[in-house]
């Protein structure tokens, strides 16, 4: 992935002590983290974790009960005009105004941010790059879901914000459009835009994001570089096919996490269960190995493990 130089100056997003409750439900419970300028940042979490609530607080749609959020140093409550001018948000839902054509909608959106005709060439360029050039005069309600999704992205970018949040931009889109959007996001990031991505497609986060925060039940579970997240976990996966349909010895059977046909996948702690000890155990039991392969944990494995454990300080 492209890694443009991170810029000095205030964080692109500063989230400090943010809490939000809906009645008795604590949606956010003291979130604290920063996103640096120029980062491609992933915000992950299971459904109901509080990601959408956090994005709504950042964008001004919801008011936090406690804490503050700053966008490039501008407080979203006390300096809301400047904060909103520096931010573009692509909402998760396909919402649109049905009364307007695509190009008019984008020009209106630009006007909301104080941008006049000087951004019209940029709007035309975005329409071409998002493969909407032949739909500029189409009514929004006549577009397919994928096209509407692309218009939403263009709407978030009309005023050329330095910080962009994309809330599940590839949800429900086909593979080809997903790749188009990935290319577009990479290009955006390469030009210095800070990109914050939420997604349930963990391979997308692993591929695109330099640093990831995992939120669960309103609390921050971890914030780490993607590489660090993948490396810090002390396990790997070993897949074995045993010769002659032999059964796994009892002391090794507890390490088996999945069975697919005759292939057994073992989850091995690097310190406590080195691969050599597994091979030695099988040899001692007189069992021959027909096939073997290993894989390193991916983000999905780490995500599942982290969100399965209770958060520190959480009451279950």
């Amino acid at each position: 992935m492209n890694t443009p130089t991170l810029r000095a100056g205030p964080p692109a997003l500063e989230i400090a002590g943010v809490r939000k409750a809906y009645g008795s439900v604590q949606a956010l419970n003291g979130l604290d983290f920063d996103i640096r300028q120029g980062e491609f940042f992933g915000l992950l979490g299971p459904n109901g974790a509080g990601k959408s609530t956090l994005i709504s607080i950042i964008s001004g749609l919801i008011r936090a009960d406690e804490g503050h959020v700053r966008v490039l140093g501008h407080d979203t409550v006390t300096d809301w005009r400047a904060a909103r001018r520096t931010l573009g948000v692509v909402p998760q839902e396909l919402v649109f105004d049905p009364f307007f054509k695509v190009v008019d909608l984008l020009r209106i959106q630009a006007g909301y941010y104080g941008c006049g005709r000087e951004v019209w060439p940029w709007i035309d360029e975005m329409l071409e790059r998002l493969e909407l050039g032949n739909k500029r005069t189409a009514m929004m309600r006549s577009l397919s879901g994928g096209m509407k999704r692309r218009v939403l992205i263009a709407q978030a970018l009309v005023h050329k914000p330095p910080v962009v949040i994309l809330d599940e931009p590839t949800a429900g889109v086909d593979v080809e459009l997903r790749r188009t959007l990935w290319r577009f996001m990479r290009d955006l990031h390469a030009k210095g835009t800070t990109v914050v991505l939420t997604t349930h497609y963990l391979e997308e986060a692993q591929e695109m994001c330099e640093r990831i925060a995992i939120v669960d039940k309103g609390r921050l579970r971890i914030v780490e570089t993607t590489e660090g997240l993948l490396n810090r976990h002390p396990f790997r996966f070993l897949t074995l096919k045993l010769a002659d349909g032999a059964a796994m010895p009892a002391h090794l059977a507890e390490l088996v996490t999945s069975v697919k046909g005759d292939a057994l996948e073992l989850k091995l702690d690097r310190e406590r269960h080195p691969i050599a000890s597994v091979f030695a155990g099988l040899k001692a039991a007189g069992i021959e190995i027909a096939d073997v392969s290993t894989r390193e944990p991916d983000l999905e494995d780490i995500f599942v493990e982290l969100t399965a454990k209770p958060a520190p300080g959480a009451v279950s």
Partner: protein
Amino acid sequence: MSPNQLGFYTLLKKEVMRFWSVLAQTVTAPVLTALLYLLVFAQALQGRVVTGYDGISYTQFLLPGLVMMTVLQNAFANTSSSLAQSKVNGNIVFLLMAPIGPVEMFLAYVGAALVRALLVALAMLAVAGPLVGLPIANPFALLAMFLLAGSALAVLGMIAGIVSTKFDHLAAFSNFIITPLSFLSGVFYSVHSLPPIWFTASHLNPFFYMIDGFRYGFFGHADVSIWLSLGWTAGFFVLMAVICLWMLFTGYKLRK
């Protein structure tokens, strides 16, 4: 923080474009409806209703009231339908995430509603005015009543649009508040012809003062003093504006 002038102008223009794109529904239809009322009521009641205005026929008496009633209903409809629709569709988020302040939003929505109200008023007067022969005694009173009354109902429409979470709620506002108050405001009759209890009740209806003051602009006299009409209308506008601006500043029903 300096205001977002282009943002205000864009929102105003967008709200005008919104009703302009369906002109048949937003302007032509209300004008036709009002002219039908004029035709039917004039035919049915000409010569049978005492207006209390010497030298003024019933049809002449009826037209200003119908124009103002249409102004009020359309000013209300423009803001209420726009806000309710964008909330139900979800696209209001684009406005709420933009650096557009509460005052800018307020002025843009009211401004667009006044443009639509002006179009319907001018269309009705252009068609029916020459046929009926309507004098204009006090154009300043006409303009003042139009602006105050149109703005008041535009703001009431904003309140209705903000409070409503479904189109049923909006319909309830229209069916149980706007329409009854419009019809019980002296549009079709002089309030002096009412029994005492309804005469008193009419004087508690702000729409009565809007209709009566507007009529004063044409005929130079009305059921009550023009200053009372202006006072009531301005007071109603201020009350609605305070409530609406409070909603916009606090994010009531717009931001959680």
